[in-house]
């Protein structure tokens, strides 16, 4: 089946949405980005920028310093340029398009916005990045190795330049943990900080500037749990 009309245009019903349209449909409001500790707004990029605005600025040739240097904004523009090229090629293909393709693509785009921040690694211009979720898994495992401690959450904030774009540099870590009852918390928190710094350096290659530890639960010690059975 040919999906183009005589003029070579794609019929509206079969036209695939552009990346900008897909992203626009995922937005419901324009609430500003919260702090690093707040739940990220799923409608915004992890750096807090509105994806539609980033695309509009690039289209007008008016990207600001943040958008030119932020890995998340640049990733959006890269994905958009590649998807734009592919959708143009799709429009020329004489093959049937699945009815629910748009819905399925939108699901993927939404999922892509929930991957956490991108953490630049190494030196500037090396173009090396690590997802926040991957780094957090490694740091949580290091925390869990401390006897009796359970990591509940781990957020990692990349080093940012003056424009608020993530650039290589020491990151800030915020941990929420459950700790064993009766354990001196200050000493335990120091041990957790040391575990996090060591894991970040030895396993990931990330320098850590600060580790904030929130104790959000007290667990009964393993011995007590056994005695209560």
């Amino acid at each position, binding site marked *: 089946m040919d999906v183009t009309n005589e003029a070579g245009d794609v019929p509206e019903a079969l036209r695939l949405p552009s990346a900008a349209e897909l992203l626009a449909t995922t937005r419901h409001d324009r609430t500003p980005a919260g702090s690093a500790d707040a739940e990220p707004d799923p409608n915004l990029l992890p750096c807090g920028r509105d994806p539609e605005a980033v695309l509009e600025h690039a289209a007008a040739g008016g990207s600001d310093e943040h958008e030119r240097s932020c890995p998340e904004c640049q990733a959006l523009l890269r*994905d958009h340029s590649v998807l*734009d*090229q592919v959708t143009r090629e799709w429009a020329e293909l004489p093959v049937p398009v699945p009815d629910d*393709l748009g819905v399925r693509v939108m699901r993927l785009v939404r999922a892509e916005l929930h991957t956490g921040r991108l953490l630049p690694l190494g030196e500037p211009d090396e173009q*090396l990045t690590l997802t926040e979720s*991957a780094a957090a898994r*490694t740091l949580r495992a290091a925390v869990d190795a401390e006897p009796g401690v359970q990591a509940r959450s781990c957020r990692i904030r990349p080093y940012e330049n003056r424009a608020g774009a993530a650039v290589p540099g020491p990151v800030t870590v915020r941990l929420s943990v459950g700790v064993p009852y009766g354990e001196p918390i200050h000493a335990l928190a120091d041990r957790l900080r040391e575990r996090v710094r060591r894991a970040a350096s030895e396993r990931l*290659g990330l320098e850590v500037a600060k580790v904030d530890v929130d104790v959000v639960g007290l667990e009964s010690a393993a011995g007590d749990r056994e005695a209560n059975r």
Partner: protein
Amino acid sequence: MRQPATRISREMSILARTTAGSAALTVPGVVDLQPGLLDAVAQVSGGLIQRRVPGVTTRVLDGILHVDVQFRAAADHRVLDVAREVRAAVTAEVRRQTGQQRVVVHILVTDAGV
């Protein structure tokens, strides 16, 4: 709207992607290439996008061939070291195989292994 990436020949694009994917997989510490958004779109499109190498995307901007590589790293390797090795290996191989000298490789590590 930003101008779409300048087209390179389809054959060149496929060569760059396959070369980049193969080079990345030879680096110790690379578990596998990690499909990205476009690969997922390709999967649900029922074969509309063909000849893709999952985890590798290429485009040309301002005369520079950009290659994006996403991969999962093994737990027994330091992520930064693996990422640097992959970038060096992919850059060298893509230059050699395609003849393109202006190549920039972008690395995204999606899993550090635990």
